[in-house]
């Protein structure tokens, strides 16, 4: 393991401390936690609080999306490990202005259980808490019999849409309805060229041969669904978009947003090459995304790989929400 760190056990606390020192105009750390909240707490008045988070190692998710127009607070768990309920509970309490709090949870069993326990704790205090479980990853096929599909990079688009709606004064019930409407229209798939090394573990989550890639890999280095030889970018893109097409049934008359997400060790140059191939592939289908983002949004430490997310913009308002101004570190 070769990493620029001090103590493997201290990476999260040192990271959060560094984050708030670097960006005090955006973030504040909640005392005794590794949760961060918007610095301009006063301007959250009248709005439903929006809290997300998860294991660390996915930076800039989720703390990078805390700010006006997106999240109220984000909770940073240990590396690739869900945050604990006491920390999530603190973030909920701090984000509530009397209008309730909405949680955005990625579909991983640990995240779901810990956020649910925190919700129970907050409800004892009389805070109305609702949530959405994001399950955008289409890599898992037999989802009926398992945990269901994982929540991955599409979660960032969920943050953006719900954040804009909350900023415009949507109620808890309206946010819940919006989140449920977005879920079936939000799909992601990824490929990995190499795995991440969790500092406390000290070795990579899996090993791929020099010329191998893995499809459908999870954002914690969980193995994916198929391994094969590395192919040119346009062939990878064709397989990924083909899968997204099966899931969403792409239609020329509909509008789409596209998120091209680097997993941590993939240079922007390669991400833009993927962008080129993706636009060409979609053009063949007579589709031009009306909104696009390319960059590192939901990373997996130093994993090399990329994911593609498509969101079918089912409602004209959704594009407005995507374009709604935000002030965060990473959007």
């Amino acid at each position, binding site marked *: 393991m070769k990493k620029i760190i001090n103590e493997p*056990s201290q990476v999260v606390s040192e990271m959060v401390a560094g984050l708030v020192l670097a960006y005090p105009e955006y973030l504040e750390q909640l005392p005794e936690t590794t949760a961060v909240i918007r610095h301009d707490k006063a301007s959250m008045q009248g709005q439903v609080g929006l809290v997300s988070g998860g*294991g660390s190692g996915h930076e800039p998710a989720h703390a990078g999306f805390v700010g006006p127009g997106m999240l109220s607070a984000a909770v940073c*768990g*240990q*590396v*690739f*490990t*869900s*945050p*604990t*309920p*006491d*920390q999530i509970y603190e973030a909920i309490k701090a984000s509530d202005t009397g209008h309730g709090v909405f949680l955005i949870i990625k579909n*991983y*069993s*640990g995240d779901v*259980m*810990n956020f649910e*326990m925190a919700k129970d704790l907050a409800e004892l205090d009389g805070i109305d808490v609702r949530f959405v479980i994001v399950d955008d990853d289409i*890599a*898992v*096929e*037999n989802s009926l*019999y*398992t*945990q269901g599909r*994982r929540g991955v990079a599409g979660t960032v688009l969920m943050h953006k849409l719900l954040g804009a709606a909350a900023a415009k004064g949507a109620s808890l019930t309206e946010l819940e309805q919006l989140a449920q409407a977005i879920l079936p229209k939000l799909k992601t798939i990824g490929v990995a060229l190499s795995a991440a090394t*969790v500092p*406390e*573990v000290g070795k990579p*989550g*899996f090993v791929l041969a020099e010329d191998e890639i893995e499809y459908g890999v*999870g954002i*914690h*280095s*969980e*193995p994916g669904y198929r391994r094969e030889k590395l192919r040119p970018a346009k062939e990878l893109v064709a397989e990924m978009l083909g899968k997204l097409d099966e899931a969403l049934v792409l239609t020329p008359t509909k509008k789409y947003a596209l998120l091209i997400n680097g997993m941590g060790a993939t240079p922007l140059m390669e991400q833009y090459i993927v962008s080129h191939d993706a636009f060409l592939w979609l053009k063949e289908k007579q589709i031009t995304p009306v909104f696009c983002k390319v960059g590192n949004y939901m990373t997996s430490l130093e994993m090399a790989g990329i994911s593609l997310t498509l969101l079918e913009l089912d409602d004209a308002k959704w594009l407005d929400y995507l374009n709604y101004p935000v002030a965060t570190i990473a959007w």
Partner: protein
Amino acid sequence: MELTVETLNNWMELFAQKVSANKSYLSELDTPIGDGDHGNNMARGMVAVTEALQTKHPTELTASLKLIAMSLISKVGGAAGPLYGTAFLEMAKTSQQTTDLVELLQAAVLGIKKRGGAKLGDKTLVDVWEVVVTKFPELTSQQIEQAVLATKDLEAKKGRASYLGERSIGHLDPGAVSSGYLFEALLEAEGRL
């Protein structure tokens, strides 16, 4: 069979030792089918449990169980934190009515199943907890081992391993293995090993 504060303290100390000694092994088990951190998470939790018991010195069973639960919930994270935490929290609640070990463990199993939504055969720690609890009070080390080993041939239906489907077959469930240590520690604490 009654659970006393002394047995509970011994139990936790022995469990902490086993987790610490097998930290890397538990994380290795978690690598092919999860994300490779079960050992680190459990070790972090049991260090917190040991410290809490030593500094706060609860003298009463309910308080001790609750302290263990809260230490696990607030330090472990992931799926193991709420599952182990819920188990001890349910034991704490039940200990207000009874100190019978089997009844406490039965409450713990119900709590784990409710929290995680897993049932017997889903390749989770439930496969050890549920089997072991029915074998009390004659539980043996071999029965614990058998329950743990039986998870190897199962296909995971819950937890991160479930994303692998059939590819999870052939691997021991890390939560089942750590639960095996927990019950081994219990037998030792009771002086039965």
